[in-house]
Structures are given as structure tokens and as C-alpha cells.
């Protein structure tokens, strides 16, 4: 074999030790006899060393590397996302579960159809923009019909959870029943006469928040006219799953 310019493949295989002894000797011969090939080999070897240095830097000198390795090694997985499974066990009808999630998601965001799926996904973290819908802030505080409708929707959709809650905490049964009565009244009442019912609902909700009814914090915010963000719903779903897990 006479002198020639080494090919890209020969160069990379040589630099990375992918050649047999005989093949290496041939490449060495080429490099010794042809300056251009030698220069290419040396340059590529230098690049390989430089990049190897980057990786050595993180694995040898960065304390974070060791803590990351520990983090992975010590991670104890829960069985196929226990939170979601708990919700699915509670609401086995997937169409109904989907509807509940859509209801929760669209309560504030209206037309954002994929929000509920994001709530079920741990890959996508919500951005701040997703969290805040400024247009939702406003009229909420003073319209008793709307408050009644929103509260009723939460109570209706979570009727299974509420039933479970009452079985676990029978002393909360009365507050939950009073709240249901109040929200039914709020849906029909004129604004001028709403204050006593809102006060009654507020007391009941505060009691239920204290007792730990999943989603009660959202109801509390609704009745106080505060903005409810997607994170609130995510927290509510977390409360639901924890509650279900702890009461199985």
C-alpha cells in the first residue's frame, strides 16, 4: 500500500482504538510517510483528549456528580405512580375521570383542553404563564349564583371522594351537608340576600379545610373571590390521592 491521505473513518477508528494491531501499524506507516495524514491524526487525537477532559472534569471534580449518582441509586420508585393509580381506583370510569379533570382544568382556563392531561403528566411542569389567568380575576367575588354553581360542581364531581371522606370522618358529615344546602341556595338567591348563605358556606368550608377535605381549599378560595390557579388544582389532586391512599 503506497502513501495516501487517511480517510475520515480510518482516522476516527485509529484515534479511538478501534483497529487491530496490524491495521494500526498500517496507519502508523501512512502517518510517518505522509505529513498530511500525520497532522490529521495528531489534531484529531488532541480533540479527543480535550473532550475526554470535559467528561473527566464532571466525573472527577464535580461533587454534584457523586450526589446525582447516589440520588439515582437510592431512589425508591412507587409502584406505577401510586398517586394516579389511587385516583383511578377511586374513579374507575375513565370517561368520568377525564370529565372531572376537564372540569377542574377548564374551571378557570375555559378552553385549554390539554390542561387536564398535563395535570396527569409529570413530564411537563407548569410555567408561570400557565398558572395565571388574569382574565379570571374579577367578578368572582360578588356573584352568588356563580359561586354557587362553581361550588356545586366541585361537590358533585367529588361526590365519591366526599362519601369516602364522610366515612373516614363522620363528624364532618354535618358540615358537608350544610355546605351542600348552602350552595344549592346560592344558585337561586338574589345577590342582596346572599350574604347569610355565603357566611354559612364559608363557615362550613373552613371547617372542612381544617378537617382535611380534599379540594376544600379551592372552594375556600372560590367563595372568597380569590384567583384559583392551576397549581391549586394540582395540589387538590395530590390531596385526593393522599387521602385515598391513607384510607384504603
Amino acid at each position: 500500500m503506497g502513501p495516501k491521505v487517511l480517510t475520515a473513518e480510518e482516522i476516527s477508528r485509529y484515534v479511538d482504538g478501534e483497529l487491530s494491531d496490524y491495521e494500526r501499524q498500517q496507519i502508523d506507516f501512512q502517518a510517518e510517510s505522509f505529513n498530511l495524514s500525520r497532522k490529521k491524526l495528531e489534531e484529531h487525537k488532541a480533540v479527543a483528549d480535550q473532550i475526554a477532559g470535559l467528561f473527566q472534569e464532571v466525573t472527577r471534580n464535580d461533587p454534584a456528580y457523586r450526589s446525582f449518582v447516589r440520588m439515582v441509586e437510592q431512589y425508591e420508585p412507587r409502584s406505577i405512580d401510586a398517586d394516579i393509580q389511587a385516583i383511578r381506583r377511586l374513579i374507575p370510569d375513565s370517561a368520568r375521570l377525564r370529565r372531572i379533570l376537564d372540569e377542574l382544568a377548564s374551571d378557570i382556563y375555559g378552553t385549554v383542553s390539554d390542561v387536564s392531561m398535563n395535570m396527569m403528566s409529570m413530564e411537563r411542569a407548569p410555567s408561570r404563564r400557565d398558572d395565571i389567568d388574569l382574565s379570571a380575576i374579577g367578578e368572582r367575588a360578588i356573584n352568588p349564583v356563580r359561586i354557587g354553581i362553581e361550588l356545586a360542581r366541585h361537590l358533585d364531581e367529588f361526590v365519591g371522594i366526599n362519601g369516602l371522606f364522610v366515612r373516614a370522618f363522620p363528624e364532618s358529615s354535618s358540615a358537608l351537608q350544610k355546605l351542600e344546602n348552602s350552595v344549592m341556595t346560592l344558585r337561586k338567591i338574589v345577590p342582596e340576600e346572599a350574604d347569610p348563605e355565603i357566611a354559612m358556606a364559608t363557615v362550613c368550608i373552613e371547617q372542612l379545610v381544617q378537617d382535611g377535605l380534599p379540594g376544600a381549599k379551592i372552594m375556600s378560595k372560590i367563595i372568597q373571590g380569590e384567583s384559583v390557579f392551576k397549581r391549586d388544582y394540582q395540589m387538590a389532586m395530590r390531596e385526593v390521592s393522599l387521602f385515598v391512599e391513607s384510607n384504603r
Partner: protein
Amino acid sequence: MDELKKQLVAAIPHMMVYARSRVGHPDEANELVQEALERILKRLPQLGGEEINFIAYGKRTVRNVHIEKWRASRRTVHLDDAEFEVACSQPGISTSYIDTMKVFRKLSEQCQSLLGLVAERYRYVEIATMLGMTEGAVAGAISRCRTAFLTFMKGGH
């Protein structure tokens, strides 16, 4: 599960280098990697039985985390060379390391992956399997990536 964890551990250096190539500052890069690892670990139980390229998956998750943080903070994603150098400049970080990183970040993601894998002593046959290429294609691509690195190193585009 243990096998998946091993593969994920093997991907950590790549995630760290990739994160640094995006943000420069080691602490910020480590924060990105930590968040990315947390996300992947939460999903790990669902990944059993699937063929996963954790290096690609890890880097994609780092990128997602970075983009989401950028959206949240409205910060610049792409630093120019001068900004990147400032972000990198920390005690214990050598100038040669910063120079190498400045060039490395200009490479395509495929080149970063290829050169990173050979830097970690993976054999061509393993790299070919990971990246879905033939061995010959791996060899040629690595050489081209190193040539590109040299070009950037010498100030070319």
C-alpha cells in the same frame, strides 16, 4: 429497575456536560440536571421493558427543564461567547476547560453525543446501537465532528 438505574447513571456525565454547555455556570447546570433526574426517576417505573436511550432522553429532559425555567424567568437561553465565558468563570474552572466548552457547545447535538460517547470509552459497536447508526457511519461521523470541532476551535464557522 436496577438496569435502568445503571443506564441512567451512565447518562449523568452527558447530562452535566450538556447542561453546562447551555448555561455555563456549574451550579445552575447542576440544578438543571437535578431537576431533570428527578423527573426521569419519577417516570422510571413506567419505563420498564422499553428500549431507552438514556443519554438522549436525559439531554432532552435537561433541555425541557431549561426551556421551562427560561420561560418562567424570561431569561436568555442562548448566551453568546462572552456571556457564556462569564457564566463559566468560577473558582476551580480552568480557562482551557472553558475554551473547550465554548467550542463543544457549538457542535450539533449529534456531534456532542458522538464525541461524548467516545470520550467515555464506549466502543463504536455500542454507540452504533445506541444511536441507531451503522458502525461505519459512526466512524465517519466522529471524524467529521472532530473536524468541525477543529474548525470552530480555529475560529471558523
